[in-house]
């Protein structure tokens, strides 16, 4: 009788080396979180203040970098404006002469403000972090320089994980919101505009079920 399907044989040596590389349940640290990283599984170089010694971070999330496009364009326009004024408007457009000292100081100050605007917007993106560990979920919200909010909840308190991905840009760049409903004091955790929300939600659901093989 002829065989319809024959499973390919796995070489014994290959199987042995694969088993030697990773033990069951062992967590291998992934790539390090870069300056512009927004989605990283098992990040190697991130930790938080209340982390236990045996606690492992499985997921690191930030807003998708494309969400920064508005302030990036604004910064470029702000940077170009003085050049346009210099090229198009005559130097004596003001009714009174401006001393050159003032011109130098005020122009330098303007560019310092532009640089600070860029830096602060970058910080707003950089420090809005969500972490998922094998024990809990951490959401760090940072805005307006003086405000930050840290929310933590245990994985066992999570009731439901959903993700929303609506709109043209979100579909095109594959980002969306992950919403975690909890039974804790804070009723829901929102990870807004994170890349690949489906995968993120799947990972959280797996961790809730005790499955650490991501």
């Amino acid at each position: 009788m002829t065989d319809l399907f024959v499973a390919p044989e796995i070489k014994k040596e290959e199987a042995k080396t694969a088993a030697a590389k990773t033990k069951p349940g062992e967590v291998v640290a992934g790539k390090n979180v870069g300056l512009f990283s927004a989605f990283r599984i098992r990040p190697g170089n991130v930790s938080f203040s209340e982390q236990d010694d045996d606690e492992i971070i499985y997921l690191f999330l930030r807003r998708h970098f494309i969400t920064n496009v508005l302030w990036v364009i604004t910064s470029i326009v702000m940077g170009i404006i003085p050049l346009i004024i210099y090229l198009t408007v005559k130097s004596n457009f003001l009714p009174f002469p401006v001393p050159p000292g003032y011109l130098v100081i005020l122009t330098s100050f303007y560019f310092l403000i532009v640089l600070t605007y860029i830096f602060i917007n970058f910080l707003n993106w950089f420090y809005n972090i969500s972490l998922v560990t094998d024990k809990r979920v951490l959401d760090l919200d940072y805005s307006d320089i003086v405000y930050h909010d840290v929310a933590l909840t245990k994985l066992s308190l999570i009731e439901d994980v959903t993700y929303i991905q609506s709109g043209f840009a979100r579909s095109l760049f594959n980002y969306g919101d992950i919403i975690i409903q909890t039974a804790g004091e804070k009723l829901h955790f929102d990870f807004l505009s994170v890349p690949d929300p489906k995968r993120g939600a799947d990972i959280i659901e797996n961790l809730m079920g005790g499955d650490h093989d991501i």
Partner: protein
Amino acid sequence: MTFDNILQAINLLSIVKTGVLILIGLFTVFLFIVYLKINALSKIVTQDNSTGLKIIIFILIILSLSLFLMALVIL
């Protein structure tokens, strides 16, 4: 130009100068607050890149201070 006009012009100039100096000074203080905030946030979630951000804000503070001193000398 009368003497009163000259006095007025001098006063206006000194007011503008003081205003510019106060503005740059306040801006430096604001940058320092941002530096403190970065420090606080870095303690909550530690990332390797936060050192780079601290260096950048430090450079911005130095630039702002230099501008303040420059304004003090030039204006």
